[in-house]
């Protein structure tokens, strides 16, 4: 199960938490090996994002991801353990999706880095095209990986009930349309900070949904 502080590790890393929350996170980190590991990976991603140029992320993060997601499944004894198992019992194509998420996270980190250098709102600065190029470079890998995961989900689709498959497909189609529109707009205006950010957010939504689908497949197995 997701911990209360799991989603705030990034804020912790960026020193954006107030004193009370920061103390709470540090107390949690002392007790939670999983979150310490997550924080370590986040630090690695951020460090890499600071160095990113217009190319794909290095693959040297894969072993850590594989180790983490490929942990052997233990017998279920309670819901907490069961939910934890759901998160880690991904197949190889699902690991690919996790890789996409990491790539997008890298792009997002670059985007945030760019954003912090400018005014706190939507004014455009000269670094925006860098983010655009980074996102564009990662789209190719994104498409390939999504196709791979899609094929895997089709193969495993009989593990899910038809109603769930239908809902997932419909929502993936909605996101795909949004991605297509955002891409078209971005072609017209590649320097737009809003469009770059919007495309990145929408891509992330697709990855989130695919990972949710993968979790459902795993849970249904």
């Amino acid at each position, binding site marked *: 199960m997701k911990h209360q502080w799991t989603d705030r590790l990034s804020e912790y890393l960026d020193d954006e938490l107030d004193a009370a929350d920061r103390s709470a996170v540090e107390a949690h980190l002392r007790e939670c090996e999983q979150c310490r590991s997550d924080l370590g990976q986040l630090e690695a991603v951020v460090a890499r994002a600071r160095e990113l140029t217009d190319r794909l992320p290095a693959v040297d993060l894969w072993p850590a991801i594989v180790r983490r997601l490929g942990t052997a499944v233990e017998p279920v004894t309670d*819901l907490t353990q*069961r939910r934890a198992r759901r998160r880690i019992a991904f197949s190889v194509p699902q690991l690919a999706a996790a890789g996409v998420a990491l790539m997008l996270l890298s792009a997002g980190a670059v985007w945030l880095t760019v954003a912090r250098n400018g005014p706190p709102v939507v004014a455009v600065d000269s670094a925006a095209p860098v983010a655009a190029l980074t996102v564009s470079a990662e789209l190719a890998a994104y498409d390939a990986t999504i196709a791979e995961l899609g094929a895997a989900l089709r193969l495993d689709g009989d593990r899910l*009930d038809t109603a769930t498959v239908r809902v997932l497909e419909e929502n993936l189609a909605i996101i795909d349309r949004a991605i297509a529109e955002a891409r078209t707009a971005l072609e017209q205006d590649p320097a737009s900070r809003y469009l770059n950010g919007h495309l990145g957010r929408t891509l992330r939504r697709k990855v989130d949904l695919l990972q949710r689908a993968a979790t459902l497949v795993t849970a249904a197995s």
Partner: protein
Amino acid sequence: MSLTLLATVALGLLAQQSDTVVAVLPGTRLDVDVMRGNVVVRTWDRNEVRVVGQPSSDGRLEVRLTNGTLQVRSVPERGGLSQTDVQVTVPRAMNLGIQGTFLSVDVSGARGEVTVETTHGNIQLVGGRGFVSAQSVQGTVTCRDAEGRLELGSTNGHVEVSGVSGTLKVESVNGGIELRDVRSGSVEASTVNGGIAYGGTLERSGRYQLSTHNGDVAVDVPAGTNATIAASTFGGAFESDFPVVLREAGGGGRQITITLGDGGARLELSSFNGSIHLRRP
């Protein structure tokens, strides 16, 4: 570990309609795992949990107290899909975890942490303190009177939130998001296909991020609000119920900033195809 497991107390293997009361210590957690059915949770001022269950003929309901967790689980038999309806009454402060596949959940009066996950089914929460999470793939999620760190989402459904306080993260893909009477300095709401409406505090140091692809974004802005509003759209328009001075931010699409009073709260509002609307409540 073995001793702990050996100490597990099987409180009941219930094949038919059942009514079980279990004494629990403060701090005991409730985990409910029902594949198909309805779960209703209510609270009382007793250190007891009452479980009233009605499994179908092809299933049974299992209630176990293990390592500080009271587990309520539907167990299908003979390959059945086991429709199970469960009503649980718990101490108000008890932390709750509820999950299922074809499951609707109704929780009211909780003052502890609440986590609900379902694939098909509506979730209705009234109350909850601390970490409150409700996620459905297909179903409406509603949450009222919760406090703390709230994470609410539905892939293919609306999310309706009212009377809550704390940090708020709300997501949907194909559904609208309605936030009313929110008291928060941190709100993040996003959907792909649906509108977003926000009514609540706009705290001086707060940050409010509302984003959609298809749909309008509407925010109630009371008179006297101090806020910096960044509004972005590609195919929509910007509307305001009150006079504002727009400052073009440039950079493609329609991106503007507005400063109300001395700034303060940061609002980041965006809709790719929809409009941004500032409303005067």
